[in-house]
């Protein structure tokens, strides 16, 4: 019964990427990080708060995400896994790795930071893991901790 209802919810895809084990409730933020807005052509399935595991799943058809692009997901969902699907089979599987540095993904929360002006300074952060994920602005030094999703560009 469980299997059947699961299949109804999330159909297997032939080719593309499945992002599994997303922290429950974060699927839409993951799509934002990947720049998937609904304006592009991909077929995307989103499953949120899957009851037994308390996780979200995102399936993107006919698009293989490259590892660097998906590592940014670790900022908000450190346990996510990426499955590259080819001809209905998992061809590659990897876990997201928290990058040490990001650029152009998150804006600085300090309104007076030089990156929040018209100057050509692209918001960049050094990333570390304290209690949670910590982003330190390379320009002004301000640290973003638990509200990362609020500052996604």
């Amino acid at each position, binding site marked *: 019964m469980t299997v059947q209802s699961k299949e109804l919810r999330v159909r297997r895809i032939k080719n593309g990427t499945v992002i599994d084990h997303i922290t429950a409730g974060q699927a839409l933020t993951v799509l934002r990080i990947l720049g998937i807005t609904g304006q592009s052509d991909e077929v995307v399935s989103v499953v949120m708060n899957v009851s037994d595991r308390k996780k979200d799943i995102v399936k993107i058809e006919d698009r293989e995400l490259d590892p660097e692009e998906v590592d940014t997901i670790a900022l908000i969902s450190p346990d996510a896994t990426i499955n590259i699907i080819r001809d209905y089979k998992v061809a590659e599987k990897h876990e997201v790795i928290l990058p040490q540095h990001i650029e152009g993904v998150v804006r600085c929360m300090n309104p007076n930071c030089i990156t929040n002006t018209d100057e050509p300074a692209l918001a960049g952060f050094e990333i570390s893991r304290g209690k949670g994920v910590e982003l330190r602005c390379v320009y*002004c030094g301000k*640290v973003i901790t638990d509200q990362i999703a609020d500052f996604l560009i």
Partner: protein
Amino acid sequence: MMRHVISIKDFSRDTIDGILDRAAELESIASGGSSNILSGRILATLFYEPSTRTRLSFDSAMKRLGGNVIDFGSIEVSSIAKGENLADTISVLSGYADAIVLRHPREGAARMASEFSSVPVINAGDGAGQHPTQTLLDLYTIRKESKLNGVKIALVGDLKYGRTVHSLAHALSMYNSEMYLVSPEQLKMPDSIKDDLTKSGTKIIETTNIDDAIGVVDVLYLTRIQKERFPDPAEYQMVAGSYKVTKDTLKEVKDDLIIMHPLPRVNEIDSDVDSTRHAVYFRQSFYGVPVRMAILSMVMA
């Protein structure tokens, strides 16, 4: 070799010690001498905010070294007023000078400027961010007038917003110091900075009462408490008054206590303290010259 001077956090203790040693060598030239160490070199000063003191002390430092200074002038009459961005201004200016001193109201401005400049950039204050030459002159003062390694220091006043004390606390954490953080409840040192200090092995003692610290420290570092931080003027009067240092408050202090202040002072230190052996704040501001000479000679060497 040092290139840019953006944040004290970019410096190791060895680098800082090297700058302070160099400043000590140059101090005699700073007080009334001259040299040709940077003869033929040009320093550009670019100040988006008024700061007479810092600008003049860079000016003086460069001229004591035999170099020249060009000033971007008032921003109202320059290309900035026409809407040129900082990145472009820096690109242009780095073709005119051998180093650039920058003060800007935005945090991170100096870091960005260093990415667009073909010559060294020295940060003379970026908003509420960094002001590394102030920190270096504070360290120089402590080393010269007291002791730097293992110093017991009280940082007093606005520890929440004061960039001077944040950078100084960070730098002192490299020197086995013990810190008394003395501030009103609403202007306490941010937790993130306290965490960094504790991690570095610095002993910190937080208090709202200056009397807990004044009798035991080697250095009393006072900063302004700004009126606008308090919604209630009466509360401001009370709080500011409780941190005011007078000759009377200095009765039970160590003989060799030194009192520092980044200046300008408003009413943190009574003028009757000026004539005591503890007052070093005017010498502290003079030390800005040899320290800036050291930095200029190192980045343009």
